[in-house]
């Protein structure tokens, strides 16, 4: 970062809204009223859970998606398609398997009509810069994940973009490889070796955001909104063990586990059961495992989420849904970045298999209206059978088809574990067969 260069406004996103229209039902809002500005010389991280629309926002900025409403201004002009000077790095690398490293890197230059000699020179430069020298003639298949993402980075850098977009660039890599790649990238950035003015990255890893970004936008889910904006005051290189660094990570955890403020306009308690919410996709084994871990020492019923995530090697995207599922079922409470077992959670952790199933069944019937409703319908029917299609259709009135399908899957798996019903996948039918 060169402080002498005057900062210039690069990107401005105003009142951005992205919604998918579903027939007859209300719009499914993915992004709602999002604003974002980006100046030269800064790295900005979009941090949030999966489904918070942060990747959607990145694609809108890249000109790959058109927002339903709102303006995206890139260097003073509205974006209407993939823009000049914006290059993207993909979570899945998105390398063309039939092109060598060199050809992959050259592809973007070829599209710009750069002459062959210059193309080769620049590609070699970018390949060397990113530490891939010697691999020019290799095909992506021959490379490890970390090397592949380096190719993705070189391919983006070689076109000398003003803005680099990164969509969870390190989440498909193992821990050590990801860390090396992060520090390499930050070193190059700090030394001013990257031909970039600004970086916008999407991540669900809190530490990664604090480690790399100058500014963090925390997204809330359903619909995606910018919940808060934080400046990261540390100079590069940053030390993960620095108490101030740890404090900031803790604060963000707290921010993200804070319960959403209830909307008072529809606060009538009777209507609470009305709209079904998506169920977190968490297996019963994982829940039982976490409850046992929490009940045992050293936690003894209470744990700090960042510490727990570190010990269990769980990412934000794994830990949060798990905590939420436990909270939903009344086995645990999330508050200010901590997780605390309830009495029900403690009893569950101490019980044997059959008792656990019973307690789980009780919790489901009390706290998960969808499962309770399925069982009620089965009890009422003379033949004790019901089609899953109708329940899914009802869910689709309130959420996107993907969420509805996932929520059904979760409900089926939980209900089966609790022996509340059985399910025939081929006939898509619930029944009480084999249920004692």
């Amino acid at each position, binding site marked *: 970062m060169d402080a002498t260069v005057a900062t210039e406004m690069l990107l401005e996103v105003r009142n951005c809204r992205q919604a998918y229209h579903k027939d007859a039902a209300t719009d499914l809002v993915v992004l709602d009223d999002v604003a974002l500005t980006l100046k030269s010389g800064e790295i900005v991280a979009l941090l949030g859970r999966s489904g918070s629309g942060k990747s959607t926002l990145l694609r809108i900025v890249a000109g790959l998606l058109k927002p339903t409403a709102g303006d995206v201004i890139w260097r003073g002009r509205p974006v209407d398609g993939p823009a000049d000077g914006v290059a993207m790095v993909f*979570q899945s690398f998105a390398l063309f398997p039939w092109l060598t490293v060199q050809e992959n890197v050259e592809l973007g230059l070829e599209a710009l009509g750069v002459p062959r000699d210059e193309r080769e020179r620049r590609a070699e430069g970018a390949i060397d810069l990113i530490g891939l020298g010697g691999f020019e003639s290799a095909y992506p298949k021959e490379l490890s994940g970390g090397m592949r993402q380096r190719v993705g980075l070189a391919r983006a850098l070689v076109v000398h973009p003003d803005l680099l977009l990164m969509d969870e660039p390190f989440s498909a890599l193992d821990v050590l490889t990801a860390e090396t790649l992060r520090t390499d990238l930050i070193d190059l950035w700090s030394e001013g070796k990257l031909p970039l003015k600004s970086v916008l990255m999407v991540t669900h890893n809190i530490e990664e955001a604090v480690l790399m970004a100058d500014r963090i936008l925390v997204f809330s889910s359903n619909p995606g909104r910018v919940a808060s904006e934080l400046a990261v005051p540390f100079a590069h290189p940053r030390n993960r063990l620095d108490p101030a660094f740890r404090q900031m990570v803790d604060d963000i955890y707290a921010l993200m586990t804070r319960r959403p403020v209830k909307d008072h306009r529809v606060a009538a308690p009777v209507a609470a059961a009305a709209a079904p919410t998506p169920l977190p996709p968490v297996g019963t084994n994982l829940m039982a495992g976490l409850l046992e871990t929490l009940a045992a020492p050293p936690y003894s019923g209470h744990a700090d989420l960042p510490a727990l995530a570190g010990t269990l090697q769980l990412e934000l995207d794994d830990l949060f849904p798990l905590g939420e599922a436990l909270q939903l079922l009344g086995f645990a409470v999330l508050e200010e970045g901590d997780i605390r077992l309830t009495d029900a959670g403690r009893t569950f952790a101490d019980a044997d298999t059959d008792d656990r199933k019973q307690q789980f069944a009780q919790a489901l019937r009390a706290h998960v209206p969808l499962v309770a409703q399925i069982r009620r319908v089965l009890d009422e029917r003379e033949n004790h059978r019901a089609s899953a299609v109708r329940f899914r259709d009802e869910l689709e009135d309130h959420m996107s088809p993907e969420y509805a399908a996932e929520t059904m899957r979760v409900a089926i798996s939980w209900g089966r574990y609790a022996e509340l019903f059985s399910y025939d996948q081929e006939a898509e039918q619930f029944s009480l067969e084999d249920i004692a």
Partner: protein
Amino acid sequence: MPSSTFPSLAASRRLPNAWDLVAIVCVFAALMSVAHVARGTWVPLSAPDATAVSLDPSNLPNYAVRTTMRMFAALVASLLFTFTYATAAAKSRRAGLVMVPVLDILQSVPILGFLTFTVVFFMNLFPGQVLGLELAAIFAIFTSQAWNMAFSMYQSLTTVPRDLEEASYSFHLSAWQRFWRLEVPFAMPGLVWNTMMSMSGGWFFVVASEAISVGDNTWSLPGIGSYVALALQKSDIRAVFYAIATMLLVILAYDQLLFRPLVAWSAKFRFETTAGATADDPWMLKLIRRTRLLGALGDAVAGLFNRVSGLRMSLARPKPEAMRKPPSRAVDVVFYAATAAAIALALWEIVSFVSASLTWSDLGTAVLLGSFTMIRVIVLMIVATLIWVPIGVWLGLRPVWARRAQPLAQFLAAFPANLLFPPFVLFIVYFHLNTDIWLTPLMVLGTQWYILFNVIAGAAAFPGDLREAAANFRIGGLLWWRKVIIPGIMSYYVTGAITASGGSWNAAIVAEVASWGDTHLAAHGLGAYIADATSAGDMHKVVLGVVVMSAYVIMFNRVLWRPLYAYASRRLTLA
């Protein structure tokens, strides 16, 4: 609550429902058709009406049923062949050495050229009986189906996942049990898909094989193919259109009642740990699953099948490969010697048969005519590629369109293109066009769809992130075609093109000659050579023509398609 505590409720689930009514009607109609056709099969050839075909459209439903029955008889034969031949080839190292290359060659042989021999053979087996003719027709369809089904099965058998095989040994499954519990289910999706593709190809041959003339004798079996042949002879264009309409309905029924349900059903055997995107069940499969009576019947059949396939059928416990005794050298020597002797004998037979009446100049003629046909095939493949690849890519990248276009392309591939020849022929006759050029498109009429639907499938499977990357780096125009999409769909395209080009060679035998009433059209080519030799009853020339054509097809495959396919699957796949 276990359902057994409510016996009345459990029983009520077995009572017929409204769907059963539909099902019962279907089942009885099918049974009656089978009985009807079977009666027609056992009569002697001399009986009145045994082989008479009339152009009265009211006969068409009857003809359609008989044509369809031949298809299914051939299908049963092909399945039997597949289960035995492919298993033997996969299980026995020695047998595999001979059986696999034989299968490979058989795949490349133009089946239509052989009709002459098979008719004579089966007529001699059942002299004076319609059955002989029926068997000859069924055999022709069988030869169009069996080879690639057997190949699919063979490939599946040799790629059964190692861990499942080890599990089957460690639980002491007998060879019979392993076959039905592991190998057949594993092979099922590939086998079902290939069977359905073969069936699609089979319609072409059933139509071609129903009206057979060898030398001075012309036989026709009641069916849609012979109906069209008669219509051509009598220059009756209206009858031709009746036949086309009937065939459309038959293919539509086949597509809806059999193809789609089977493919959807076989998806459950797919060996994947991740649940892929699954399409909705086709309506027929839903009907079968909802019908109580059919469901009960299906359960009974499945129960019987499970009991039979669960039998041990073996005394000793099977041993995995590594634990068996090493193969005996002596048996190896005997086996190779026997094979060599058989090959020498076969070669001698061929040479003496062909050299009896043929000269080197005959061979020269056949090779020259073959090169004409080859030029046709090459030009057709280029034209079909230039037309269908851009269209297929356009459709495939738009999911909504792809979903609509894909079934249509499959449907068109199944439709026997030879029924569509007459309008073309009429067109050529009317405008006095050059037959060498204008008969050519007929060869690709039925096979071009394989290119289209494979390209659609390839484009639809093209990964979204690569499309985004291409858009992000603003790759467009020719560069996009060259570096992005063509490599991406190449392996799919080659798969389709192999089928299309092989089919075109085969179709040459019926497409290079055409007649309308008394007008006979012929193009210069190997297909016309074989067709003429067949109608002249000149067996030696037929054999020569078929051998030369096989050589061309094999060369085409080895020189062009195989290397291209190997390259595509090595370099251009996304996995």
